[in-house]
């Protein structure tokens, strides 16, 4: 069913649902709402399965890097391990400490989860497989992914725990200071594409050599700075100081258990997928690819970038807070802006292909 669905273009589903409901005499607003709700449900299903797959895949990759097997006993190579985790987390008692900040404590995981989902509205999974092709696509994604800072701060403050507070403060400082190089490295791509819409970005990288990563010299530099800033956005090692297990016990999610913790857990993996999806759309030509269906190309490339992020996690130690800030402001920002100027200059002088 999933494969058949994927080959259909999401826009067709929307028009089919709209046409079906239009003649039933419901007011126009309701029809719109229901059809969009249908699209949202499909997207939620796809992403939930994807998040479960990513959690399982990370534990298997970690296992094999560390010369052990990772989950094995639950199904062939433990494929339904994450489903078991999810069922268990469903049953956990919802431990709520009474000294908490009631409203903030409750809504923090929701904000984090919603922020992770909002970014998927204008990510082109395939040819036409895009929920809404906003003409300010990449700008919208950047705006939405910064919601996670608010969620982490709320979690840090709400759980009335010193470790969580430290974790929250650190994450706010980190994500804000890595937002600047990330946006700057994205700008270098936008100069050449001329439009913010994701579909146009993908359209401008039709053939293999027009992929943005091959536009030496600013392409690769932009990709490297983007990936570094992206690992910091997704709170992955070596930038995972908000939930540094060794220092802050469990960082901001120290007081969360059960489904609330599951939301943070899945949001982290979805952030990782979003960040690599953007990397693929910008630098590796989105869903362009010769023989295979478009969405398969996109999924393959994104999983490769996700693999790269996972390799970071299991090989690098963690940076200290001030070194992390120093690295961002003293190294990454100058490099990205220099690269931006270089790209603009080359565009002006016409030395690009």
């Amino acid at each position, binding site marked *: 069913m999933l494969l058949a669905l994927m080959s259909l273009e999401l826009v067709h589903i929307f028009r089919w649902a709209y046409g079906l409901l239009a003649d039933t005499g419901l007011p126009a607003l309701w029809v719109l709402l229901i059809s969009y709700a249908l699209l949202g449900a499909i997207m939620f299903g796809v992403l939930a399965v994807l998040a479960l797959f990513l959690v399982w895949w990370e534990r298997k990759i970690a296992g094999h890097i560390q010369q052990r*097997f990772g989950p094995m006993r639950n199904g062939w190579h433990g494929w339904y391990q994450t489903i*078991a*985790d999810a069922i268990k987390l469903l049953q956990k008692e919802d431990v709520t400490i009474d000294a908490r900040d009631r409203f903030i404590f409750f809504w923090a995981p929701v904000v984090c989860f919603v922020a992770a989902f909002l970014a998927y509205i204008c990510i082109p999974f395939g040819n036409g497989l895009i929920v809404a092709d906003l003409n300010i696509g990449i700008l919208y994604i950047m705006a939405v992914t910064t919601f996670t800072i608010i969620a982490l701060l709320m979690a840090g403050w709400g759980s009335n725990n010193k470790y969580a507070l430290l974790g929250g403060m650190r994450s706010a400082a980190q994500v804000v200071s890595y937002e600047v190089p990330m946006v700057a490295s994205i700008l270098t791509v936008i100069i050449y594409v001329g439009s913010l819409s994701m579909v146009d970005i993908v359209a401008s990288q039709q053939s293999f050599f027009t992929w943005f990563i091959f536009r030496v010299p600013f392409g690769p530099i932009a990709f490297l700075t983007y990936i570094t800033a992206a690992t910091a956005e997704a709170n992955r090692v070596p930038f995972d100081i908000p939930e540094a297990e060794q220092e802050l016990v469990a960082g901001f999610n120290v007081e969360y258990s059960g489904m609330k913790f599951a939301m943070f857990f899945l949001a982290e993996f979805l952030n990782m997928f979003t960040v690599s999806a953007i990397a693929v759309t910008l630098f590796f030509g989105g869903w362009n690819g010769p023989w295979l269906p478009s969405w398969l190309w996109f999924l393959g490339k994104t999983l490769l970038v996700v693999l790269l992020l996972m390799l970071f996690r299991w090989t690098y130690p963690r940076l200290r807070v001030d070194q992390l800030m120093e690295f961002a402001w003293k190294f990454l920002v100058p490099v990205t802006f220099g690269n931006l100027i270089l790209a603009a200059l080359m565009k002006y002088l016409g030395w690009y292909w």
Partner: protein
Amino acid sequence: MGLIKKVPVYTESIPGGALVATSLEAVLNFGRAKSLWYLLFGTACCAIELMCTGASRYDFDRLGMMFRASPRQADLIIAAGTITKKMGPRLRKLYDQMAEPRYVIAMGGCTIKGGPFYYDSYSVEKGIDHIVPVDIYVPGCPPRPESLLEGCLHLQEKVRRQKLSEWQEK
């Protein structure tokens, strides 16, 4: 969540509800059994064996057991190593902070009955079952990683046989 506890009461009342309850029970027990996240808690020599069991040769992750640093997210506490009188109340506080379906494995002789050496020591708790309710006792000083793994498998068996109704008091 609290909701789960009320489910058996309603399902039994509707006709054929017992079948639903037992199948639901099987699914819930399966979920709990297959993903026991253990707390990073080790006091003495057994903690080194716990580390070796978590390492690459005998691997906890195969059973789906991942270590968690905060007691909130852990649902299994492996009391590895001697619990002294000074550490007793701390162990109790840790146990209270864990979320409800929680289990305890008493690993090593010291946590079972004060161990082979400290029976006449003035500062060692003779066994932790009067501090926290213990599910599985793994004897040995320190127990080999294989026996700890066997203890975990027994715990998974015990979790799978739990009844939802009995589960409410736990």
